[in-house]
Every structure is written in structure tokens, then in C-alpha cells.
């Protein structure tokens, strides 16, 4: 178990280093002189330029620059944004709340309804409900969250007027939930299809197993068989796909925040990219990527914990 965690860490840490190298290299990838890219729209007097060169160690060789930058980042110093000259870290902290709230509601919808619908489709295999679920899967996988979001916005926001069409609400849990329902739904719909598909497939597989027949023969109730035996086994592939779900959710969150004009990390990133605010882009990209890598690490470990076959080393993971 400990060995497994160490093994996974041995993959995750180099991955994080390579990502940080890529993020650092953004300064140099930007067309033109790195100083110009970092200067943005500020006036270019020699003193500012020299200060920038000094701040980003641009006079050092590339590897030294990267080392110094990484050291600063590890100490929590992500620099200042070009537009507004704010601390990148505080801008991120200010915006993270909306994104976290949005992702949590999205995840809840995905897990709850995704698993339930997948189960329903598997239990009613071949019926109209099943076919509808398969069709829903195709639509969900094909239509990106920002497009679904526009339709939700139109029907529930404009035509019916049930939900607000922009912003994250001022204060209080209720108001925020009301503002974030449509975005979370748009977010969930695009990712839920994967969960429905996987749950359906693995439920169908599990339902055909001998232990189900045996449980029936023992006279156990259908509810007991489904929730006590089948679902527990059928959910293992869903956990494996959780990494896919998380990456999908976060990527969709970026788009959804723009569609619904929410002040979250995603719209902060897009804003920074549009204005070519390199330090801010670096900061948000690092935060997003670290999160994705850490979640994948956590899922790998949870996966091992819940599947006894892997825990006891009987199956190659």
C-alpha cells in the first residue's frame, strides 16, 4: 500500500515539474522579447525594464531562471499581474470560491444522476428508457458545456425567467445556489454522459454474474441485491473514470464561467489569456494543473483502497 502510494508519487512529482517548466517557458514562448511580454501596456522606461529583468532574472541562463522562479513559486510567490499590478495569488484566492462551489454542485449532479440514470438504463435494458439514455450519451459527449449552457440560459433564463442570466450572486448560500444552478447543470450535462455510459455498461456486466443468480436463489430482495452487491462492484469502473470526469469538469468550468459571466478561476484565466497577462496565466495554469494531478493521484489511491483484488495484489492494476 505504502509502496503503491510512493510509486504514484514518483510519477506525479516529475509530472508536476515538467508542467511547471512548461508554465515557466510561457514567458519565452510568447512572441517577441520576454520583457515586452511582461511589460504589457505599461510605459517602457529603462528603469521599469531593468526592474522587470531583475524580477524575472532574465539576465541569467534559462535553467537558472527556471530554478529561481520555481523556488519563488514554492514559497507562494506567483508574482504580480500585469494588468492592475495585483498579487497573482490574491487574485486567485478571490476567484477560487466560485469555481470550487460550481465544481462541487456539478460533481454532485454528475455522481448522483449519472449513476442513477446509468443504473436505470441497465435495469431496463432494451426499453425506451435505455435507448433514450444511449441517445442522451451521444448528445452529452458531442455538445460542449458552453453550447448546452447557451440553450439552458435561453430556456430557463430568458423564456421562463426562472434563473438569473449572469453573475454568481452577492451573498448567502441560497442566492449563490440560485445563480449557479444553470451553470452547474450545463457543466454536469456534458460530463454526466460519460458516467451514465460507464455505469450502464458495468451494471449490465455485473448483473450477468453468478453471484447475482445465487443471491436471487437465496431469496434476497431485488433492492438488496442491486444496492448491496451489484452497485458496489459496478461502481469500480466509475471510480477509474473519475479522473476523466474531474478533468472534464474543470475544462468545462472554464467555458461555463465565460458563458454565464461568473467571476471564477476559469474566467480569470480566459481574461488573462485575452489580455496576455503572463504572470496571471502562469498562476492560474499552475493551480489548475496541480489540482488535476493531485486529484488523479487521489483517485489512484482510492481506487486501490476500494478494490480488494488490487489491495491484496491479486490483480495487476
Amino acid at each position, binding site marked *: 500500500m505504502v509502496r503503491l502510494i510512493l510509486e504514484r508519487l514518483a510519477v506525479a512529482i516529475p509530472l508536476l515539474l515538467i508542467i511547471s517548466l512548461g508554465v515557466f517557458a510561457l514567458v519565452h514562448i510568447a512572441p517577441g522579447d520576454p520583457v515586452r511580454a511582461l511589460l504589457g501596456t505599461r510605459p517602457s522606461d529603462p528603469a521599469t525594464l531593468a526592474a522587470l529583468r531583475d524580477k524575472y532574472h532574465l539576465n541569467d541562463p534559462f535553467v537558472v531562471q527556471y530554478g529561481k522562479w520555481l523556488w519563488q513559486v514554492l514559497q507562494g510567490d506567483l508574482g504580480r499581474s500585469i494588468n492592475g499590478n495585483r498579487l497573482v495569488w490574491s487574485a486567485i484566492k478571490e476567484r477560487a470560491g466560485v469555481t470550487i462551489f460550481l465544481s462541487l454542485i456539478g460533481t454532485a449532479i454528475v455522481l448522483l444522476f449519472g449513476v442513477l440514470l446509468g443504473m436505470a438504463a441497465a435495469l431496463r435494458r432494451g426499453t425506451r428508457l435505455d435507448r433514450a439514455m444511449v441517445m442522451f450519451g451521444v*448528445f452529452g459527449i*458531442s*455538445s460542449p458545456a458552453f453550447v448546452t449552457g447557451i440553450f439552458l440560459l435561453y430556456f430557463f*433564463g430568458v423564456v421562463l425567467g426562472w434563473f438569473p442570466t449572469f453573475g454568481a450572486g452577492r451573498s448567502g448560500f441560497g442566492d449563490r445556489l440560485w445563480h449557479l444552478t444553470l451553470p452547474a447543470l450545463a457543466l454536469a450535462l456534458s460530463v454526466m454522459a460519460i458516467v451514465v455510459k460507464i455505469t450502464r455498461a458495468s451494471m449490465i456486466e455485473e448483473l450477468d454474474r453468478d453471484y447475482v443468480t445465487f443471491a436471487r436463489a437465496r431469496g434476497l430482495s431485488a433492492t438488496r441485491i442491486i444496492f448491496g452487491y451489484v452497485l458496489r462492484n459496478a461502481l469500480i469502473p466509475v471510480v477509474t473514470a473519475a479522473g476523466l470526469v474531474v478533468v472534464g469538469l474543470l475544462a468545462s468550468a*472554464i467555458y461555463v464561467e465565460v458563458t454565464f459571466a461568473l467571476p471564477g478561476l476559469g474566467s480569470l484565466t*480566459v481574461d488573462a489569456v485575452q489580455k496576455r497577462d503572463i504572470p496571471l496565466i502562469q498562476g492560474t495554469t499552475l493551480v489548475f494543473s496541480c489540482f488535476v494531478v493531485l486529484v488523479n493521484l487521489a483517485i489512484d489511491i482510492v481506487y486501490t483502497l476500494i478494490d480488494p483484488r488490487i489491495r491484496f495484489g491479486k490483480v495487476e492494476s
Partner: protein
Amino acid sequence: MTLPLELPQMRGRLQRHGLTLPLLLCLAVVAIVTICAIFGSNIAPDSPFTQRLEVGDKPPSAEFLAGTDLLGRDVLSRVIHGARTALVGPIVVAAGAFAIATLLGLLSGYLGGLVDVAIMRWVDFMLALPGPLVAIVVVGVIGGGYWTAVLVLIILFTAPDTRIVRSAVLEQRPLPYIDAARALGISKRRILFVHILPNILPLILAYVVLDFAFALVNLAGLSFLGLGVQPGTPDWGRMLFENRNILFSNPPGLLLPAGMIILTAVSMNLIGDWLFERLTK
């Protein structure tokens, strides 16, 4: 009198190929989009660029069937012209990614050893990255719009595609015809490209179509964030970006391009699934 006799036959023939009604509809959607992409300027009622600032954003009328956008441009004409960037980029992405992936997958699956390890490590690394975020940041920082986006997507799509090709090659490798070819002293290159490739080509074709759908959605997404096509270009994703404030005044300005993105992507996905069933079983 021949018609009633022929119809069931036709239906039988269509069904033998798995061509159900939804699939025929999908093929029709793709055909219409393709026609719009090629003959857009002949079909569209108006130029996609003509501005009428005095008209502004108006809901649909007899003159403008889908209304006008903020600059008074005809939404319908812009959607019809938008078919071009919606088809060209994704085709290049899907074909480009699979061209590279086929080469890497063949080498990795057939040669094995260090080549295989190196290629698969790279694939694992690429798959661990949050792809959409990488696309947004790289395209945004490098600049260059549409074609930079196409290039970045090719690189991102190559990784999963390589894995698909590799596993298909691994399935072919133990088959007797490969042993026979090797016993005859046929060169590795010839075995790879003349013997294995034709056998896995149907699978690749099916995945190219599925890749097209993903590329379409991704390119439209980048344009929606203002990072894809140049400002002013008639493009479905870009229209969602430019028209995001006219949802109240002229809903079709957003709903029509959004609907076209979904329709085209769903159609290509279903066609891809159908090709997959037909060609690989």
C-alpha cells in the same frame, strides 16, 4: 407500379448496412453542412460581412430570416458561411493527428522495446495534462488564431490516437500472416505499411470521424473564447462570442450557431459509431 415493390427492397438494403433513419438524418446534416462550406457564397441570401449599423440587432424578419447581429450583419448568411471553418479545421486536425498517430502507433506496436517505451511514456505524459486548458493557454500566449489552434489540437489529439493505433497493431502482430511475411524475408517497412496498415485502416477511419467531432467542438470552443478565428470571420464559435449580448434582442443569433455545432458534432459522432460497428466487426 414499380415503386411499392422497390421500396421494401430498398429498405431491406439500407437496413442490411445498418442505415437506420437517425443515421440517414446524420448523413443529411453532414451533406448540408458540406454543401454550405463549398457553395456558401451562392446559397447565402446576403454577404456575411455587410454591416448595417442603423439596423443593429433585430429579431428574425422576412428580410433577415434569423435576424441580425449587433453590427446589423445577416445571422443566417454568417451561419451558412461559418460551415467552412467548421469543416476545414477539424478535417485537418483529425487527418493530421491520425497521420502522426498511425506512424507512431505502428512503430511502437510492431517494434516494441525502447521505441515502444519512449513513445508510450510520451503518450502517458500528454494524457496526464489537462488538454483543454493547455490548448487555451498555448493558443492564447503564442497567438496566431485558427491555424495555431489547429496545430495545438493535432499535437494534443495525437497522444490518445497513438494508443488506439498501437493496440490495433498489437492485435495484428501475433496473427499467422505476419509470421508468414517475416518468414518470406519481407522488410519491416513493407510489413508495416503494406501488410498491417490495410488491416487496421478501417478502425483508423472510424476514429478519424470521431476525432472530427471532438476537433469541431474544441475549435469552436477556442473561437468562443476569442482565441480561434480572426475577429469578423463568420464562424459558429466566434458568433457565440460576438453575439453573447444579444440573447434577449435576437436569440437566433446565438441559438442557430450553437444548434449547428451540436447537430454537426452529434451527426459525426453517430456516423463514427456506425462506421466503427460496420468496419471493425
